[in-house]
């Protein structure tokens, strides 16, 4: 078949086709060029982006350590908190089924099926409540359909069980179990244990680097929960998984790293004694508040402290600070209104008054003065008779050369003056301690004419003996925020008060007033040193640290920076193994721990120092009232300690002794008790506001410090009553009842041990 030849140009011009070819060619070059630049030259970055797309790190939370008391009674544990969740991707396909599930969950939880819009639901944090179930699920479905959406948080165990039983009827609905802290002893131990809160913003970078997850993991905010955070927290585990675009896990990309649970901590606290101590304290506070103000709601004693310690080991057996708070209310989150209420309360319930508050120690401070007076030979012997009338005129001068005259002579009154203006009369130094004679201590502390020449003990040497008994510096106990107290001296006064030290300041400081401040724990430590014949033990609240299988760990605590350390072995480049230390939490390795660290587990009694053996007392060369340290240190003679002990014993045995009424008449104990009371006049902002600071009848705090048995002490107790009045009357009964409880518990334990 043929047809007439038609030239190609009659269909189209060839050059026009070449233009088309050219266009196709250019487009092909552009496409291939871009393809090359993406796949051959840009590959690495895009592969990284693809890996980042599908890689997800999941932190496995570590269980926080449990805290026990010394008898194994649980003080802190982890309990389950139940959240009802819906995973949008797992809901059934049929909308009617979904609505039925929503309705069932709604009746169970009270969350409405529909409330507001999805847009509004975006504004709510999880668990707050507000949006309806549909809105929450729709929002979650659009964000990450395989992530559970929290519908109702912290439901009761019954509701959680009910949901678990229905899990097959309600596909997509499940119960999420979160561990939260539970404090079975609640407010009884809140000041010791503390509470948890979200990871503080300032610590977030370093804690995140250690594997913590902000907004999920908790951090200690007070008490042992804070100071032993690194021991308790453990190490979060990690899983690196591949996820699809909806967030569904496909597989593990790396072998999972299991979480290491935190270590368990056993405290030295005996919960039974703690309970007795709290009851004893509250009974006394309520008694006196009612006595003075009836049921008017007015308060006389606004706060108080009672502590018990084993003087041989430094173990704190009870530590009660009133008022306190309910740390169980902080277990899930810190409620705003409750926290506001606590932090604005003028009595400071969030403070652990035993270590975080400073008060004038009053006459309990005379123990420091007494050791100094006897050891420095201010009086020839404790048998020297000192004249102690009801009040004396003393000279208050600001420079050594200032003459004493009518302008600067002031009456210095003994506490007995109100009831017996004649005072104690002619008494020896044992009775000065036993009767807590202020006049006697004014004389020996600051000098009194020819009776006590050369200015008595003087403020510089008084400070040395006070520090030797534990005053003036934080004790280093394993609790956060410890106050240091204050031992004033002329330099301190010039710097902070802009005034010269006066002779009157010395008199006042000798009886633990004026500028002298101490924490109740420091007062307890001074009593412990005396009870333990000069050995000052490191006060401790931790008895041991165990791992989750119960093996006791070796742990040291550094009070200066609250770090906790464990022994560690390092292998150097040569393959030599050498012993060093690893800091818990940060994992830092160091050849030695910070200075002042001590072992907290396994338990060993740590001696801070022995004043009869370790030279702790600085000596001075004094000229015209100004003293310069010589750099020489000396010890306290053992007999001096014994003589002060005898004075403390006499406070109980002598019918006029300050503790006679409490320990012999009111709460007779078959065991020999020795002690010291204190009544510290004060005028702080609270007292000023209440118009209590009247000249001549200042308000006063009550103190009592006592230990028993006198011959071989096993318990020392201190009690403090804010605005309590006379220590012998308000604080001594508290101490006496704690001692009673201690010996009762001891006999019960012995009976049990014998019977078992």
């Amino acid at each position, binding site marked *: *078949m*043929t*047809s007439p*030849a*038609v030239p*190609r140009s*009659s*269909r*189209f*011009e060839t050059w*026009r*086709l070449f*233009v*088309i*070819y050219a266009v*196709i060619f250019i*487009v*092909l070059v*552009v*496409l*291939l060029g*871009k*393809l*090359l630049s*993406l*796949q*051959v030259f*840009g*590959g690495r*970055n*895009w*592969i990284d*982006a*693809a*890996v980042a*797309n*599908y890689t997800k790190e999941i932190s496995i939370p570590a269980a926080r350590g449990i805290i026990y008391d010394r008898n194994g009674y649980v003080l802190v544990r982890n309990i389950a908190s139940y959240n009802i969740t819906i995973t949008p991707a797992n809901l059934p396909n049929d909308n009617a089924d979904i609505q039925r599930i929503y309705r069932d969950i709604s009746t169970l939880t009270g969350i409405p099926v529909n409330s507001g819009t999805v847009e509004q639901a975006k504004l709510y944090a999880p668990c707050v409540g507000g949006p309806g179930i549909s809105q929450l699920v729709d929002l979650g479905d659009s964000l990450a359909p395989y992530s559970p959406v929290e519908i109702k948080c912290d439901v009761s165990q019954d509701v959680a069980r009910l949901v678990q039983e229905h899990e097959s009827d309600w596909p997509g609905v499940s119960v999420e179990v979160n561990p939260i802290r539970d404090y079975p002893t609640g407010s009884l131990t809140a000041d010791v244990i503390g509470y948890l809160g979200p990871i503080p913003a300032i610590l977030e970078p370093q804690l995140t680097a250690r594997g913590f997850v902000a907004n999920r993991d908790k951090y200690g905010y007070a008490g042992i929960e804070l100071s032993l955070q690194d021991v308790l927290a453990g190490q979060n585990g990690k899983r690196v998984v*591949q*996820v*699809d*675009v*909806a967030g569904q896990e*496909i597989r593990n990309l790396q072998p999972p790293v299991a979480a290491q649970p935190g270590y368990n901590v056993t405290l030295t606290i005996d919960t039974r004694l703690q309970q007795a101590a709290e009851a004893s304290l509250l009974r006394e506070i309520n008694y006196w508040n009612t006595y003075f103000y009836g049921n008017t709601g007015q308060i006389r004693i606004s706060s108080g402290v009672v502590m018990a310690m084993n003087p041989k080991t430094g173990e704190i057996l009870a530590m009660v600070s009133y008022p306190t708070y309910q740390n169980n209310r902080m277990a899930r989150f810190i409620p705003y209104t409750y926290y506001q209420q606590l932090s604005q309360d003028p009595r400071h319930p969030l403070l652990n008054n035993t270590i975080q508050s400073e008060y004038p120690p009053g006459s309990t401070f005379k123990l420091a003065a007494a050791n100094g007076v006897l050891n420095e030979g201010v009086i020839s012997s404790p048998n020297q008779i000192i004249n102690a009338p009801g009040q004396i005129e003393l000279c208050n001068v600001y420079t050594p050369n200032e003459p004493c005259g009518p302008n600067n002579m002031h009456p210095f009154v003994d506490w007995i003056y109100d009831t017996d203006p004649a005072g104690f009369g002619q008494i020896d130094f044992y009775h000065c301690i036993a009767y807590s004679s202020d006049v006697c201590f004014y004389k020996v502390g600051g000098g009194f004419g020819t009776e006590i020449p050369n200015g008595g003990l003087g403020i510089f040497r008084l400070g040395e003996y006070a520090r030797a008994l534990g005053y003036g510096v934080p004790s280093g106990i394993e609790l956060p925020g410890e106050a240091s107290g204050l031992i004033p001296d002329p330099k301190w006064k010039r710097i902070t008060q802009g005034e010269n030290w006066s002779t009157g300041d010395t008199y006042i400081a000798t009886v633990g007033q004026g500028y002298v401040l101490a924490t109740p724990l420091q007062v307890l430590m001074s009593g412990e040193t005396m009870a333990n014949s000069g050995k000052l033990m490191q006060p401790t609240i931790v008895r041991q640290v165990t791992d989750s299988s119960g093996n006791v760990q070796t742990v040291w605590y550094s009070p200066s920076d609250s770090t906790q350390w464990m022994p560690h072995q390092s292998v150097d480049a040569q393959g030599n193994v050498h012993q060093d230390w690893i800091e818990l939490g940060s994992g830092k390795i160091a050849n030695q721990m910070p200075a002042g660290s001590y072992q907290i587990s396994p338990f060993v009694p740590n001696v801070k120092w022995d004043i009869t053996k370790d030279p702790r007392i600085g000596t001075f060369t004094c000229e015209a009232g100004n003293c310069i340290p010589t750099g020489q240190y000396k010890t306290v003679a053992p007999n001096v300690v014994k003589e002060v002990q005898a004075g403390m014993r006499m406070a109980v045995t002598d019918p006029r002794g300050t503790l006679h009424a409490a320990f012999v008449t009111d709460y007779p104990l078959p065991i020999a008790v020795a002690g010291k009371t204190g009544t510290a006049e004060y005028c702080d902002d609270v007292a000023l506001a209440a118009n209590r600071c009247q000249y001549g009848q200042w308000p006063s705090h009550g103190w009592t410090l006592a230990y028993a048995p006198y011959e071989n002490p096993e318990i020392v107790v201190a009690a403090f009553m804010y605005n309590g009045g006379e220590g012998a009357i308000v604080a001594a009964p508290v101490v006496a009842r704690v001692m009673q409880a201690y010996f009762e518990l001891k006999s019960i334990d012995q009976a049990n041990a014998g019977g078992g």
Partner: protein
Amino acid sequence: MRGLSWRNFDFLLFGAVILASAFGAMMIRSAIAGNETLAGYDTRQTYFALAGSAVILLLASIDYRYWLSIHWPIYIGVMVFLMALSGLGQAAFGAQRWFQVGTLYVQPTEFAKIVIILVLARYFEKSQNDPRDLKWLIKSLLWVWGLVIWILLQPNLSNVIVSMVIWAGLVWMSGVRIRQIVVLGLVFLVVAVVGFRFLQPYQQARVLNFVQPDQTARQGAVYNVQQALIAIGSGGLFGEGYGHGTQTQLRFLKVRQTDFIFSATAEEFGIIGAIIIILIEAFIIWRCIRAAQKARDVSGAMIAMGVTILLFFQGAANIAVNLNLIPVSGLPLPFISYGGSGLMSLMIGVGLVESVVMRHKELEF
């Protein structure tokens, strides 16, 4: 059936189309793995490809001039369908593009493009001896816009552009003058600038996003293209292996069975696979141009060129979208992307080209 000789049937073109469709079905299978709602799409696509192959053979056996003789009923019929879409079509993605027939979703727009090629081929043959003046040009444009206006009203901007490119290409081949092109270019510019204001917001956003991408946007407008680039880039030289592309299999890559199937291929088969796809497409286009050169008359040449331009433009535009060279358009990759109507209309186009090449002017005696 004068002159029908299967000896002239372009088996290479037919083979390349079958190869591309098979490869497409295989990639769709990988792309939809694990997705319940898309399950079975690979099988459907295979059925479409088989039916399409039959259509190619059927159309090849029918003289293409038969369709030109009944161009009025075809033209009016498609127009009616397109008009009906404004009211009856399914509302999907904000645009009305489909008829549902049983389980099939028919997109008349895809077939309209073939009809445009047909009516233009007929027009340019009839007017082959007319002067190439404005009247000639506007008449051709009117034929196109009789259908395109309804596509624009859907609104389906991408296919309006495709239709206009086909028109421009055929006008070019039919001998439009350079002066007219300059005038047309200016008109196009004005229309583009003014027309931008009448675009749908999502279309405006796509254009703006392309011109100036929002660096802060993680999700949404730039997300799909970004994921496509990650997929292509992480494919590297040899790819991650069939069924092992993480972007595709873990569904970070969106609409991976249609718009972004090129990215899925580039991820799983690397640059080797991407170039093979481009080469197959280029080969098909070359065979269509060859048919145009061989055509015995103007209408045959224009049909072949029209199909050439349709395949080239859709293919190039799709790959350019994947490579983030032009804004997202939603045009499928010929023979590879999932879509029954699209595949079938392209198969019809190839069938027409085969019909042309089988009836080409024989020079041998």
